[in-house]
């Protein structure tokens, strides 16, 4: 039976036995699977805890490895505190910034293209694939090792990363600060303007008025922050850029 497309109709059936039956079967099957898995695979238990012996690499629990991977690109206050807070905040405001009445209660891609693509980017690319990278491709010193490479604790990585203003040829400290700040603020300013223009083009002025400034502001802020992560990752991997904006208080 194919999953229904389009808004559902009133086609109610009794919970007992139809829903209760499938819940019961699902619970039995899952429990069985869990028991068999638990009989076959033992939970790990390493040597006793020793605070004086740091393993290399030290990894957070696997579900946080996406955030640990972020430490390559951002300082800990951003990777470990600001980004997770933005993820939680972004998820919480989602029902309020998405006012598209279509696609409520059924699968559909056509009516919610941009919502679904954005969610895929955040969930599959940024969260899941970074966890896979953090689990399997990061070895001693958090260096990159392909699946077939042995984890060599003495691998030497040349520290060639420079800051963006330096790469642009700026050497003066004050000018470095200004160029860096202009890049970060410029990214958000231009990004917000582009988003405004894009949404007006896509949906029209009437929609923007209905959507309102708060929704637009929140959406573009979160959206740009998400893409800033992607851009910063690409900048590091492709152009060896360490920071964009270096200040005495914090670096971005």
């Amino acid at each position, binding site marked *: *039976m*194919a*999953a229904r497309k389009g*808004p*559902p109709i*009133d086609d*109610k*059936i*009794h*919970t*007992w036995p*139809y*829903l*209760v039956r*499938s*819940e019961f079967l*699902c619970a039995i099957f*899952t*429990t069985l699977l*869990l028991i068999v898995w638990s009989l076959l*695979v033992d*939970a*790990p*238990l*390493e*040597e*006793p*805890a*020793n*605070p004086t*012996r740091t393993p290399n690499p*030290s*990894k*957070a*629990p*696997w*579900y*946080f490895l996406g955030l*640990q991977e972020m430490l390559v690109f951002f*300082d*800990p*206050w951003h*990777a*470990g*505190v*600001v980004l997770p807070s933005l993820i939680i905040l972004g*998820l*919480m405001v989602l*029902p309020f910034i*998405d006012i*598209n*009445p279509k696609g*409520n*209660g059924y*699968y559909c891609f056509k009516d*919610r293209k941009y919502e*679904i693509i954005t*969610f895929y980017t955040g*969930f599959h690319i940024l969260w899941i694939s970074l966890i896979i990278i953090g689990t399997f491709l990061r070895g001693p010193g958090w260096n990159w090792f392909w699946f077939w490479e042995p984890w060599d604790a003495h691998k030497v990585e040349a520290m060639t990363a420079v800051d963006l203003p330096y790469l642009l040829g700026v050497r003066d400290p004050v000018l470095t600060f200004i160029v860096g700040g202009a890049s970060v603020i410029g990214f958000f300013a231009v990004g917000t303007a582009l988003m405004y223009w894009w949404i007006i083009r896509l949906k029209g002025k009437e929609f923007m008025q209905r959507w309102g400034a708060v929704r637009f502001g929140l959406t573009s802020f979160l959206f740009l922050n998400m893409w800033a992560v992607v851009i910063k990752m690409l900048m590091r991997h492709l152009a060896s850029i360490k920071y964009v904006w270096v200040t005495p*208080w914090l670096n971005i």
Partner: protein
Amino acid sequence: MAWEDIKRQITDSDVWRSMFRHGYDDSARNRILMVSGNVWLHLHPSKVRRHAVRMRFTWCMGGITFLMFLVTVVTGIYLMFYYRPTAEYAYADMKYLEFDMPFGMLMRNMHRWAAHAMVIAVWLHMFRVFLTGSYKPPREFNWIVGVILLVLTLLLSFTGYLLPWDQLAIWAVTVGSNMGRATPFLGNEGPGAELLGVNPIYDARAFLFGGGEIGTHTLMRFYILHCIFFPLVTSLFLAVHFWRIRRDGFSGPPL
């Protein structure tokens, strides 16, 4: 006396009838009574959408998340009987649990794998709810409760990670908690640390650890969070989450 007579005598008795008010008659009325007259089943509405019951639609991931939660509660209680949350005993108790305790290894395995499965299932549940747009009105608030439950699932799993007190546990928790040290204003290595005068033994991470370094005090703290505080809070939010699903109708827009 025939078997049928004994059965009838039992089911006709006052005691039986005080507990069970309806049998298994397959009538429309009884099908509804089955759900509305049962404290557990009445979390469901008595009728649901036909399309929404199909596995292809629901993926059953919310239910599996809850099942995994129940499994960790049951196995976790079993493990608690044999585990002492101090640095001195914790690791030895793990070994005892694995080698001497009846079904100890199985219970520990089930506890750990169910916890991991719960994290994966809750992510897939969120993904499915997003794809069917089930966070849209009238379910906006329930989506928020769901996000809180997602965070609580991760916190439950994270606090449990320390309890085996092996190298994997303390270093994973050390790495995972370093963000506390980097919190703006509240962590001693975060931007603005000097404004509030926080230091390594008096900042956000020290609050989490119960001290400047990870140690037996941290173990006790995580144990209480893991076994009492987070399960309790999670149960409260689960109750709200289920109640809201019930009120807002299962799957599909309000008609």
